[in-house]
């Protein structure tokens, strides 16, 4: 990973790549197009490409032409000490079963798939159990992925559309210190930047076979003469799945084009994905212990065997950027998205009663959730030319705006799996329209080695809700004198400052501090008419340092250390009986993160991180008739949040020499994730988990171009038996054995055991 600074987009052409072209950040020009004539002795190391006048070629020296083009930010973008960019070499160091697993390289982030490929991952970052994305703002190629007011959970973000070959880097912003961060940036935000670097461009086809009947085909087309952002990639995958009811079919397409016209640049991205998967659901730990169900199995009841999910998504966006000679630059963009989601899942077995049909109960709590969201957004920003009133003071001001519209259709009911999925209860039938309008300003002042940013952001969110089951009377009660339905509208505003300061102390050491206030929008269906929409407010402070010693002996070492405190006014937790998120109250996270990246040799890359956090509940959860005075102690630990998350990525790639008219190359990778024991409700702990993925590969590059690569990957190499998700709630999965249990019990969704995959890749 590297810092956000110096990440100007650049393209090099020529015989050799010029190293260090990005170091010339002092240059204020936003677009640089310079032709350098660099004299190099054949055996000499590559010279740094500092801005320089064209050098006269010396006699007997090789003259190469290097064209450096860049659209450089007029200023560094780093805010908090937790801002990092994870580069492609780190992302590709360890084996990945799918593109979204690249996110595991983000410091402090843990992801798991507990409901199969058609349901979004579960995410945890900086002590936030972000469920399916409510606390992390994800974007892919600049297009927002989180879906507001989703039936399965606020901020639902399915990153299954990622294809690993097309992930260029991750821009990770931990905390909320950048005014551009909007809804769901509670723990932070992650932008997945797309592209295929120059050395990997061309055509590529890869076939994959693996354990549990897994097979897949990936095609990538990245024309060599085009910018690294331009590519097409497609993927088809199928698996029978480990254990029972985990078979899945999925496919995706990802495409991006970048172009330049004078001082303007453009970029367009398109993505499509569809997936259908069976879902094993959850099982009770006491049933596993008693031998009533096996660890990787699903319950035998039809209501359990009918669990499954469907995901369909299409999204696209266009961005135009203009950089003026005076250092000013501006950007406008627009995006659209359509997402369709359907889930059948039974968490609780047989404990539900129908509200719509009198006397209907115990037919299996197979929840059907449907959500269709059509979204569109526009955004624009303008950054003025640097202002230098008194040298060395340099200031820039950026103003920007974002707007998005979401039209959501959602429903939830109960299905009877034993009678051809008859609907036996309806819980939600609603249409929601939401508009989010955000404005921000950001002033940066720079004085020598010190840098200060002051900014702020305000968001107006408005909702129109047609709750077609609003005011519904259960069948057991007298009919009301009205027509069922509850239409309402509400709006709210969230505003807060974003500030950061940095000081370059010398020797590659930077000290950083940041403070910001952000928000998470509410689930629109929970709002009353005319209510001022209550936002979940997040206040976050970050203090840290970053050390990147210069010099060849350091191997590009980068170390970041930060401590943070984050308070959230209104946290949520998963409600298994309704299959969605419900409010639990205010929470706080106090933590520290250490990350490092090191390239001790040209063929070796290592990256690691450790995040330790104490996540606590600050106030009692809301009272309910069932729990009028919820027990609470200030400072009690939030369950399900791993206090310590560690990650190590190691990648090695080394030439073996000539072989059969080509050049052979060996590759090995290792990825290890460690989750400490997680607190669960009622003073219980889930065991710690150590996951190790490893790969070895052999590549063979043909002299005429192209080549083959064969690799073997092993996932969960230690065959750790662990729960991808663990929940605690009341259920009855054995209704025929007697009396219904009502005390909350531990439930798990088993994670994948050891698995292998063999990949054969052809490239041209």
């Amino acid at each position, binding site marked *: 990973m590297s810092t956000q600074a110096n990440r100007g987009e650049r393209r090099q052409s020529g015989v050799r790549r010029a190293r260090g072209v990005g170091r010339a950040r002092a240059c204020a020009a936003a677009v640089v197009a310079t032709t350098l004539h660099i004299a190099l002795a054949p055996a000499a190391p590559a010279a740094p490409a500092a801005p320089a006048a064209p050098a006269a070629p010396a006699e007997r020296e090789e003259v190469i032409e290097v064209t450096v083009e860049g659209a450089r930010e007029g200023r560094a973008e780093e805010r908090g000490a937790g801002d990092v960019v994870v580069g492609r070499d780190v992302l590709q160091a360890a084996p990945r079963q799918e593109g979204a697993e690249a996110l595991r390289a983000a410091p402090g982030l843990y992801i798991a798939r507990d409901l199969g490929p058609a349901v979004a991952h579960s995410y945890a970052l900086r002590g936030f159990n972000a469920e399916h994305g409510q606390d992390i703002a994800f974007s892919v190629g600049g297009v927002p992925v989180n879906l507001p007011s989703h039936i399965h959970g606020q901020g639902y973000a399915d990153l299954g559309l990622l294809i690993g070959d097309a992930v260029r880097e991750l821009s990770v912003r931990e905390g909320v210190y950048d005014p551009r961060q909007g809804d769901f940036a509670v723990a932070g935000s992650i932008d997945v930047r797309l592209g295929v670097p120059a050395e990997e461009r061309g055509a590529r086809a890869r076939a994959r076979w693996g354990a549990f009947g897994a097979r897949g085909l990936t095609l990538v087309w990245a024309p060599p003469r085009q910018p690294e952002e331009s590519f097409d990639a497609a993927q088809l995958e199928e698996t029978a799945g480990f254990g029972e009811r985990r078979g899945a079919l999925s496919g995706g397409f990802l495409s991006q084009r970048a172009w330049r016209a004078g001082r303007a640049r453009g970029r367009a991205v398109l993505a499509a994905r569809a997936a259908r998967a069976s879902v094993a659901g959850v099982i009770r730990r006491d049933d596993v212990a008693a031998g009533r169900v096996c660890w990787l199995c699903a319950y035998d009841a039809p209501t359990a065997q009918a669990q499954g999910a469907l995901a369909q998504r299409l999204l696209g966006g266009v961005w135009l950027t203009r950089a003026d000679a005076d250092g000013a630059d501006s950007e406008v963009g627009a995006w659209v998205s359509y997402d369709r989601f359907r889930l059948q899942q039974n968490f609780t077995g047989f404990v539900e009663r129908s509200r719509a049909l009198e*006397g209907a109960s115990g037919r299996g709590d197979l929840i059907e959730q449907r959500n269709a969201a059509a979204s569109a957004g526009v955004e624009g920003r303008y950054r003025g030319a640097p202002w230098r009133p008194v040298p060395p003071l340099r200031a820039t001001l950026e103003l920007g705006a974002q707007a998005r519209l979401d039209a959501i259709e959602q429903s939830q009911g109960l299905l009877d799996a034993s009678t051809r999925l008859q609907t036996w209860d309806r819980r939600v039938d609603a249409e929601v329209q939401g508009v989010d309008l955000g404005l921000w300003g950001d002033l940066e002042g720079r004085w020598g080695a010190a840098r200060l940013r002051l900014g702020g952001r305000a968001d107006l969110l408005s909702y129109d809700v047609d709750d077609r089951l609003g005011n519904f009377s259960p069948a057991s009660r007298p009919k009301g004198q009205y027509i069922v339905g509850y239409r309402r509208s509400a709006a709210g505003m969230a505003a807060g400052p974003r500030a950061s300061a940095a000081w370059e102390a010398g020797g590659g050491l930077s000290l950083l501090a940041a403070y910001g206030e952000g928000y998470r929008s509410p689930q629109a269906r929970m709002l009353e008419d005319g209510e001022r929409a209550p936002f979940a407010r997040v206040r976050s402070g970050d203090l840290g340092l970053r050390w990147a010693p210069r010099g060849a002996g350091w191997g590009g070492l980068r170390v970041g250390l930060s401590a943070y405190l984050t308070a959230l006014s209104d946290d949520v937790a998963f409600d298994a*009986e309704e299959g969605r998120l419900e409010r639990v109250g205010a929470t706080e996270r106090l933590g520290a993160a250490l990350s490092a990246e090191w390239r001790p040799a040209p063929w070796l890359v290592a990256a690691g991180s450790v995040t330790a956090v*104490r996540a606590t509940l600050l106030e009692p959860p809301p009272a309910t008739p069932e729990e009028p005075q919820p027990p609470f102690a200030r400072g009690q630990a*939030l369950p399900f949040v791993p206090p310590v998350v560690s990650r190590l990525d190691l990648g090695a790639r080394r030439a073996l020499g000539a072989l059969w008219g080509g050049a052979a190359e060996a590759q090995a990778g290792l990825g290890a994730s460690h989750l400490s*024991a997680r607190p669960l409700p009622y003073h219980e702990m889930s065991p710690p988990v150590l996951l190790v993925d490893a790969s070895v590969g052999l590549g063979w590059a043909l002299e005429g171009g192209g080549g083959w690569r064969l690799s073997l990957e092993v996932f969960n190499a230690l065959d750790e038996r662990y729960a991808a998700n663990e929940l605690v709630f009341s259920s009855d999965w054995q209704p025929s054995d007697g009396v219904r249990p009502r005390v909350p019990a531990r439930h798990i969704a088993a994670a994948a055991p050891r698995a292998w995959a063999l990949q054969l890749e052809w490239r041209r």
Partner: protein
Amino acid sequence: MSPPRPARARAPHPPCARPALLSCAALLSCAAPLSCGESPQVRLQVPLWVAGGAHAPAAEGPALTRAALAFGPLYLCAGAQAGELCEAARLEWLDAAPVDALDPAPVEVGALRGLSGVARSWMYDLGISSQLDRDAPHTLDAARALGGSAALAGEWRVGGEAVARFEVTLRAEPGAGTERGVPQVRKGLSEPFERDVRPGDVLTARFDPAALTVGLTARALLEGADCAGALSPPPESPESPESPDSPETPESTLARCGGVWRVRPDSVAARQLTLNLIGGARPRFKWSRAAHPL
């Protein structure tokens, strides 16, 4: 619907003070998985004892000689109103056991399993438990052994003397049209019950046998019972058998049975006794912290 919300309960030791942002020592001490401030709400087992009461029969009316009840399953709830608002219980005992309501000595019948914290209401069945997924209720072994929810036997006394014997088996089960899946006997809002349940607690349910026969009249017993045995003819009046001056009283009719009066399950008397069983003869729940409730 009760969500599986995060644990919440009182802390047995002080929670972490909010440390300064840079207080690494505090950070490390609090970031450890098992450090201060964790929820102390724990899973526990509470021994469950049952007991009857001393029975001093009245000179007139019914006097029980046997009062066996099938008690359980039992749920303790966090909310003040058990029933539909107790989908998730604080503690539960999913079994049933026979209780001799005439024996004041406590007997341990099992243990409630669940979570610590405040319990504000209770609900239970009498060996026959309605389940959500089927029409017929589930009968537990204790009720199967008794032939129902309760087996009562007694004497009818007149002037301190037993003139007749009766016996009845009662089934406390939900009737048609009542909601399935809800225990039959639930704490009323006016009944006091609140306990912050902690490890080491013991619960005793004590039944009062006198409450079982409240409202039972000789006439109701006579009209709803069959004499198992010979029924002697009514005594002849010296004047006329139909003389209004010497009507045969229910008590005297009861006394003519040479065997036992068996109460029919569909009789008024059986309904009265079942109502007593569900609504009147509620146990007194007593908490203690001794290994034995006495």
